[in-house]
């Protein structure tokens, strides 16, 4: 009984709220992918020669690579020639100098997305580098950040203005040849965010980027690079919504984080791209490579993700714990419904002494979806006193979905302590009964239990995001009460 209601309420999540489409003329590269496309993108961005070379090298490498097939996801073969690799809003020629100059239609889109740019300053000090399709259109709060010495700008701008920083760090965490999708991204990435926090600076506000896939048939290839210099701190939010449409879209983003000595990076994601309809038609293919490098001693990288969208998700935010005493964290909620397929998890590579990592993963699968946790914890020989704790729990809602757990646990150091536990279950009848016996309605009880199931992760989100995330997880629960 309760299970069916939860199914229904999770169904509610499926009715995609953000399925609108803004009709703005785009300037596109011709369909298909070849060296000319890459030259076109590079030229459009006014990129220096070295960047073009970097892209072309990646492209040539990509041609020799095979799409990975080990993940537990099925999708029709992707024709990489049948997509546009570059599209920018028309107003690219004269970039807006202030919000007034921004295309009002764009602003409207943001309004619908819940980021009224005009009211940014009131929005709890969140600076937004809004990515509309591939070109960053407006960046706010630059002044305040500049005061602190923080660089927060579109990648294309960073390549022009801070070439030394970009050259030093780009591709240093996710090498060009890392994997099929990362290599593709390296060849064709259109834009993304670049963040540099100077030594000892605590970034005065949460940084945030809204990714939004807008033009039909444009793959999105975002590239994000965050460098936190010694002793600095930054919290970065990434949120995603995409309009509803039928063609499958490939999204292959790369995110690289570098934390130097004593630095801390907190990276939070709410991903709510179009998951396809109830019959599994359409939806985004999300193949993301996210990796953080705790390069300096005492550094920390924390990933938090709430994954509710996309038809296919292939995503493993990882931490390389190179510096002594460095800390890696991964908190994840992955909700799948209908025909969604999620294969997500993390890698914690312990290289330095006294490094510690913590993995909390909550998978909720409903409908006919498939939800896989795939993770690696590897302790290398020199990682004295490394410590890992992993907990992955799966909740099954309905009897047509599936949940899988594939952890790899490898230790080569005796002083390391690794703990892993995983459970799979449905909502316990006993707990439900207990709650109802205390006077809660059935829906409230289910709401309470699902909420409790995700709590460990929800608590990790920054305030601004927690609201949105709770909405996403909780929407289901709202509908079921009354």
């Amino acid at each position: 009984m309760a299970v069916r209601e939860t199914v229904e309420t999770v169904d509610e999540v499926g009715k995609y709220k953000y399925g609108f489409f803004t009709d703005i003329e785009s300037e596109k590269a011709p369909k298909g992918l070849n060296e000319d496309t890459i030259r076109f993108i590079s030229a459009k961005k006014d990129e220096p020669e070295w960047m073009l070379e970097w892209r072309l090298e990646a492209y040539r490498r990509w041609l020799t690579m095979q799409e990975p097939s080990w993940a537990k996801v099925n999708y029709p073969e992707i024709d990489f020639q049948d997509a546009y690799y570059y599209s920018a809003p028309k107003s690219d020629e004269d970039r807006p100098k202030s919000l007034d100059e921004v295309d009002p239609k764009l602003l409207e889109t943001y309004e619908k997305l819940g980021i009224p740019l005009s009211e940014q300053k009131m929005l709890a000090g969140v600076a937004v580098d809004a990515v509309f399709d591939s070109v960053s259109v407006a960046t706010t709060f630059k002044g305040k950040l500049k005061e602190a010495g923080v660089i927060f700008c579109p990648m294309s701008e960073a390549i022009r203005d801070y070439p030394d920083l970009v050259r030093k760090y780009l591709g240093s965490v996710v090498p060009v040849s890392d994997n099929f999708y990362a290599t593709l991204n390296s060849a064709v990435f259109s834009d993304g965010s670049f963040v540099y926090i100077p030594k000892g600076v605590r970034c005065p506000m949460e940084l945030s980027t809204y990714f939004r896939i807008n033009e039909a048939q444009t793959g999105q290839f975002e590239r994000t690079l965050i460098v936190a210099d010694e002793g600095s701190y930054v919290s970065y939010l990434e949120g995603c919504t995409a309009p509803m449409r039928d063609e499958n879209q490939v999204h292959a983003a790369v995110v690289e984080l570098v934390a130097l000595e004593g630095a801390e990076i907190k990276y939070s994601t709410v991903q709510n791209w179009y998951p396809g309809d109830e019959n599994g038609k359409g939806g985004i293919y999300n193949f993301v490579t996210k990796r953080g490098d705790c390069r300096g001693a005492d550094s920390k990288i924390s990933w938090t993700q709430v994954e509710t969208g996309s038809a296919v998700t292939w995503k493993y935010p990882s931490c390389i714990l190179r510096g002594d005493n460095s800390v890696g964290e991964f908190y994840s909620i992955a909700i799948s419904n209908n025909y969604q397929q999620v294969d997500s998890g993390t890698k914690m590579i312990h290289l330095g002494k006294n490094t510690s990592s913590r993995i909390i993963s909550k998978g909720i699968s409903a409908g006919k979806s498939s939800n896989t946790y795939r993770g690696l914890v590897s302790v290398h020989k020199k990682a004295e006193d490394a410590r890992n704790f992993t907990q992955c729990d799966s909740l099954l809602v309905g009897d047509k979905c599936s949940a899988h757990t594939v952890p790899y646990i490898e230790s080569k150091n005796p002083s390391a302590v690794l703990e892993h536990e995983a459970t799979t279950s449905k909502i316990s009848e006993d707990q439900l009964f207990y709650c109802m016996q205390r006077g809660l309605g059935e829906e409230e009880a289910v709401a309470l239990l699902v909420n409790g199931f995700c709590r460990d992760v929800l608590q990790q989100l920054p305030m601004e995001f927690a609201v949105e995330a709770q909405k996403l997880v909780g929407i289901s629960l709202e509908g079921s009460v009354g």
Partner: protein
Amino acid sequence: MTANIEEQYLEAFGALAPQGDPAWLLARRRMARDIFAAAGFPHRRVEAWRYTDLRRALAKDGYVPAQRFDGPLAYDAETVGPGAAAFGDVERHMLVCVNGFFRPDLSSADLPEGVSVKPLSEAVKETGFEEFLTTDDNLHPINALNSALMQDGLVIRVDAGKDAGKPLHMVHVTTSSGASAAHMRHVIALGKGAKLSLLETHLGQGGAGYLANHVTETHLGEGAALTHIKLQDEAKDALHLAANNLRLSADAKYYGFVLALGARLSRHETDAVFKGEGAHADMHGALALRGKQLGDISTYVDHAVPGCSSNAHVKSVLDEEATGVFQGCVLVAKDAQKTDGRQLSNALLLSRDAGMNAKPELEIYADDVQCAHGSTIGELDETALFYLRSRGIDEATARSLLIRAFLDEVLETIPLDGVKQDIGSQIDVWFRASALAGS
């Protein structure tokens, strides 16, 4: 370098093949040979063998088929290692195989009524025997190799409703000193409600680099119960591969335990399929390894029907440069509601150079299930050690006490008391050798 070790094995096939095999078996051998030839020895890039690279382990040796040995057998600690003493005080029937061939002359003949033992070479001539060989060669190159080259094995049958009483004890000894390979296929078939306790020891003459490849097909009828305890103490350069293919009918019970001490590389694999509701399988084990040994315990449980439970608990103690591997997969099929599937791997690393790899996997397609797995890897608890030392216990004793306590948790589950004690003594022997090496 050997260009193609697979070819050496296939040559062996050519030499061995037709010896009065029935047509179905010949056809099967040919098919298995082709599967093996195509797949080759599994290596690091084959997911199921990710941590146990057979191709590398076999690269140096050219194995010849093991030769039948009919002479007198020295079955003592001096010749075949301390494992010879195991189960000596347990009242049992002995079934002895030497170099991969059954030796009825060394075995007990007074089996109770309703219990029969035949060599494989005889049993294959029975009509309908192929139904017992349910292993799918396509899924497993080593099983395919076994199907292609199997020469002998034990076919143990217990009739419906019979309790075999005293345990049957399979003893496998390898006497050949060179690089020989024996491929044995065993069948354990229990009729409805039948009961059997089966002990296994695997021993070899010191220093020999042989390969022992055992595939066991176990069929448990409705309500049948099998207790299956194995001690693997092969010679130190040997390779030991054992695959136990387990088919359980409704309400059948399986208790399996393996203690792996020997061989430079060993793998004990259990592939269980539940075919009827209400069945239960325990697949426990312990690894105690040192030197450059690699020990692998892998379980794959297919909960194909509702209402079954499975439990795998493996404890590993790894010293010097040894590596332990635990791979477990619990697959819960659609509609297999009320499944209870558990896996737990605990490992103790006693030295700087020891390592452990664990991969406990869950693959679940039904919602009303309770599935859990856990894995821990760490070293001896310093505070516990300190506590014992502060009570006047010397370090070596304190360490051995803690290690025994660690292993006892899984040893305690062994349902036969005498057997449990003997397994414990084997661990003590192992530990003493370790302490000697350390001092």
